[in-house]
């Protein structure tokens, strides 16, 4: 295989890696998006599932609706469109969350449930100065949600195991290995550790993918 043929293959590997929002280009691990609720509120797997539900209800509808509304408004006001859309979608999402969970359960998330509206993981798309097609918004909203939820569930489960020695409230190990994991400072430490390992694994996979397309 010639060098000229090799270049497009390398580019296709990069493109595939960029599109994979779950593992190779996870929004939490690679871009540091949505860290505030992850660090403060995702202390147990139950909290992680509640936050995941909220993200699922909020992220994709906001992105699709904002992409649609941006077509009919001045594009320079796209930040306002995205923020207002997120606020409007949150009203419905909060109603559905109220049906799914009790007020006491939602109180565990505290301020970080409404703060999702202003989180970059929901609003970041408005920074790009190109209009987004509705179909693309739907696809990217769904895969970004999947990636965020994967990281959220993994880190919240890990924090519950390390900080309390339980999973869903049931004991899984003898005791708490690292009680600080329940605090925001411990959340930063656990998330940083997960990021290190995840990034190393992603780099290894990317290297393997590149080796597969290298000329013999």
């Amino acid at each position, binding site marked *: 295989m010639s060098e000229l043929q090799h270049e497009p293959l390398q580019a296709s590997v990069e493109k595939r890696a960029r599109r994979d929002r779950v593992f190779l280009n996870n929004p939490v691990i690679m871009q540091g998006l949505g860290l505030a609720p992850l660090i403060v509120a995702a202390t147990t797997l139950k909290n992680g599932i509640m936050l995941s539900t909220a993200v699922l209800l909020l992220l994709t509808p906001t992105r699709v609706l904002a992409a649609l509304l941006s077509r009919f408004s001045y594009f320079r006001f796209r930040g306002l469109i995205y923020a207002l859309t997120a606020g409007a979608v949150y009203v419905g999402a909060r109603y559905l969350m109220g049906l799914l969970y009790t007020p006491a359960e939602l109180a565990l998330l505290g301020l970080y449930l409404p703060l999702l509206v202003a989180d970059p993981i929901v609003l970041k798309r408005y920074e790009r100065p190109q209009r987004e097609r509705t179909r693309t918004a739907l696809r990217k909203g769904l895969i970004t949600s999947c990636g965020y939820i994967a990281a959220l569930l993994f880190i919240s489960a890990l924090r519950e195991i390390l900080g309390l020695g339980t999973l869903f409230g049931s004991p899984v190990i003898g005791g708490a290995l*690292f*009680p*600080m994991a329940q*605090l925001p*400072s*411990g959340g930063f*430490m656990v998330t*940083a550790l997960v990021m290190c390992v995840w990034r190393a694994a992603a780099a290894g996979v990317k290297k393997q993918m590149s080796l597969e397309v290298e000329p013999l």
Partner: protein
Amino acid sequence: MSNESALSLQRPGSYEANRDIVFMILPLLALATFFYGMRPIGLCLVAAFTAMLCDHLVAWLRSHTHNREENSSIPAALVLVMLLPATVHYYVVIVSVIVATMLGKHAFGGYGHYPFNPSALGYAVAAVSWPGQVLFYPTPFSEIGLFDVSGVTLLESAAHTLRAGGVPNTSLFDLVLGSYAGPIGTTSVLVIIACAMYLWMRRGITLSVPLGFLLACAAVAFFYPRVNTLGLEPPWLYLDTRLLSLRYEILSGALIFAAVFLINEPVTRPKNTRAHFAYGLLLGFMTMMFRYFGSYDTGVCFAVLAVNALSAPLDSLFSRRAPQKGVRA
């Protein structure tokens, strides 16, 4: 002046400075062994081994060869152990040393680059995670096994009694000799002062940082004593109570130990020597605020972490500015 005496005045390199710290931990460890048996030695060995293991692990992860001349992790781990009680679990020591070495030191780029004192960070993590293990101390001459600490009576520290508004029931003689319930290596003031003199003569530490630190601590303790909850009375009244407060505040809560081993850490203190006294003053004031209003007895570690963040601004504040005359726009 002969060549030998001229050489002795040279500032030691980082390897020698760290080695000196380890040497000066040894007298404190010997005293702790006298008070608590062999367990402090076991804790120190575990801490030093963990620190070395972390260094080798990071070198392997970064595909570097381990630098044998870089020995800063061992004194950091030993200083951390000196702040803990003799009954602390080995697991707590291992985790706190891992945090101190991997997160406090290597995550920021290794020796010479970290902004926060690794020992203080390790202690803060241990105190927040396991307060029941870290904030209760055995009395000297308790029967503490190398691996078994069950049945040992644990007491709260003198600093805790002060925080509760009481007066510790410890004589001045015991306070100076370190014969009271406290951390492994921070209670014996006399030995710590002897270590400080050696380190000062070797130019491993400067006196301006501890001087400012102890001055600020003494001023707060004298003018606003916690003993008998005196409040903001004129300073010439209740002089005996103020002196009592001064005595207990300075001699408890690992203040003297921190003044020698913790706040003088050459990487995290300001590089500019003219900022050292102000750094010490700020650190002393913050330490007393953490002790007065914080939840933990050894507030100095939390104060060190907070004030370490101000080292660089203090450096630039006290830097000598070149005269700018004749410069016009």
